[in-house]
């Protein structure tokens, strides 16, 4: 068994940022990566996807986008190349194509088994991502076998889906983008929308990420929110990495010919059933958007920013007066895309560190002595799961690690 002070599981933006922070603090460490650097960005994203954050916001410790298009949005190959450059910049030691199979505790150390040997370490950083597994309803496997079921992790492009209509379940960033792309390719598309958050791509001549960042919303910490569990579960904004269209919301999708239905509630007697509460889900979404815009406007007024266009408010979301409540399966639909959110996969972590719902329990990224996690939604701040947010978290946890180890040694 090889021994190392600190082991980092995952070589995406979180693992690489941590590697940089550990090197700066002279902490010996190795990154274990199941594939290559930026593996999820290489293999678990669809072809047309671009980052939801503009290039100027692609910032990591001691590294940032320096290209000619700060307001553009990276394609996936560009994200991969950005992170590869960062790995080179950090001189990170990455054990690529090595899959962790089990983590157990041995006294004050952790034992990490992989398909290429075992490691022992004093500190372990979980940086394996927040979106390893799609959230599917427990009954998804009971649906007729002739229905193709995929998640955004497997979806690539419309032509690779079997012919016919598609039911896209989930109206957050992935769901609305995939629904729009399938409809543009001529597919009949039904979009099942539960709770979602509508947001314009740009507002008062600035990108929405500029507003989120400068008004302080992205920097908000776990201490600054009333209900952390709820803040961690907020779905992604209805955005696409493209500044041409202002909205990719339910109105835009309906104008494109997508049929909007309520939250997918159940499967019964050869049908899937949708909630009749769609109008309220849309109303809640409009209210949330308007509250965010109110906050942006109030911040802009306080800050006395010159040259901003006047505030504006947008027409409410229109949903069908009588949305469809059921859909026969199989029938008009050959494929279901489950864009119902993701969760991390810690199935190999054999430690008593999970809450009653099976979620990794942590305090601002500190899981247990010597055990840390990075890159989860609202880990320490609202931007923790963003490329731009993981750096500050990595610095804070690296400081904690160094301090805790110093204390143990003394």
């Amino acid at each position, binding site marked *: 068994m090889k021994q190392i002070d600190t082991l980092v599981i995952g070589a995406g933006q979180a693992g690489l940022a941590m590697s940089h922070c550990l090197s700066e603090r002279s902490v010996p460490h190795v990154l274990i990566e199941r594939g290559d650097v930026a593996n999820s960005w290489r293999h678990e994203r669809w072809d047309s996807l671009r980052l939801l954050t503009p290039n100027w916001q692609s910032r990591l410790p001691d590294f940032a986008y320096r290209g000619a298009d700060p307001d553009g949005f990276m394609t996936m190959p560009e994200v991969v190349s950005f992170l590869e450059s960062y790995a080179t910049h950090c001189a990170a030691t990455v054990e690529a194509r090595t899959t962790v199979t089990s983590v157990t505790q041995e006294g004050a150390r952790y034992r990490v088994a992989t398909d290429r040997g075992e490691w022992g370490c004093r500190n372990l950083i979980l940086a394996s991502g927040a979106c390893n597994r799609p959230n599917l309803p427990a009954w998804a496997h009971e649906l007729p076998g002739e229905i193709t079921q995929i998640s955004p992790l497997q979806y690539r492009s419309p032509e690779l889906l079997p012919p016919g209509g598609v039911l896209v379940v989930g109206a957050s960033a992935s769901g609305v983008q995939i629904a729009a792309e399938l409809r543009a390719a001529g597919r009949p598309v039904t979009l099942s929308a539960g709770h979602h958050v509508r947001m314009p791509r740009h507002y008062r001549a600035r990108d929405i990420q500029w507003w989120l960042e400068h008004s302080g919303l992205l920097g908000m910490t776990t201490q600054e929110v009333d209900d952390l569990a709820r803040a961690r579960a907020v779905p992604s904004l209805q955005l696409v990495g493209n500044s041409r269209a202002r909205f990719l919301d339910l109105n835009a999708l309906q104008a494109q010919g997508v049929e909007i239905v309520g939250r997918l509630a159940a499967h019964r007697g050869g049908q899937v059933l949708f909630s*009749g509460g769609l109008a309220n889900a849309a109303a809640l979404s409009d*209210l949330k958007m308007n509250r965010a815009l109110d906050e942006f406007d109030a911040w802009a007024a306080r800050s006395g920013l010159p040259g901003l266009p006047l505030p504006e408010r947008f027409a409410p979301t229109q949903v069908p007066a009588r949305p469809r409540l059921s859909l026969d399966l199989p029938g008009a639909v050959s494929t279901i895309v489950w864009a119902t959110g993701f969760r991390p996969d810690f199935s190999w972590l054999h430690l008593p560190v999970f809450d009653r719902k099976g979620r990794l329990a942590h305090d601002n990224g500190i899981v247990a002595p010597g055990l840390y996690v990075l890159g989860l939604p609202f880990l320490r701040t609202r931007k923790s799961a963003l490329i731009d947010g993981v750096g500050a978290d990595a610095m804070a946890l690296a400081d904690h690690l160094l301090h805790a180890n110093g204390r143990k040694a003394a």
Partner: protein
Amino acid sequence: MTYADPKLVNNGVNTEALIGARGAFEQMPAAASFTFRSACDWIEGTYSRNVIGGFFGLGEEQKRRRTFSIESDHPAVFAAADRAPTPPEIVLAALASCLTGGLAAVAQHRGIQLRSARAIVEGDIDVQGILGMDPEIRNGFSAIRVTFEIDADATEAEIAALVAQSQKRSAVFDILTNPTLVEVSVA
């Protein structure tokens, strides 16, 4: 968002107790499993009476100081004696009560004083369904509309948010908008 001090607002809702209950259930989720029940006796024709008393919750059988009674019948146009509201009307009433109760609780939590609130509920039923005349017509409501009249110390947007949140957290709204497994057996 900044709210007024909830303590200065009185909608008659003990939100502190409800927030305390949330904390307790977080520690002991099994205690949050409740079973409500009603016993309905047929009296005559379409006339029946429900008696509602105890329920299960907080891990044990809960008794009440008194029992309640809800009667139901059909109106004269259905050749009945019209001694009580129809069952679908009771469903509409349950929705209205659930939403107005929720409204008061959310308003209390947000420090909004309610002066008056009324929910007018309408449900559309094509009775060809229950009469078995057309299999394409469902038995139940094809649509339900709720219209609120609210007088409160709040802006239009705050009132819209109260109404939206009361739906989001309503048991009956959920029961009506989402399918529910119903098992009927003979004892």
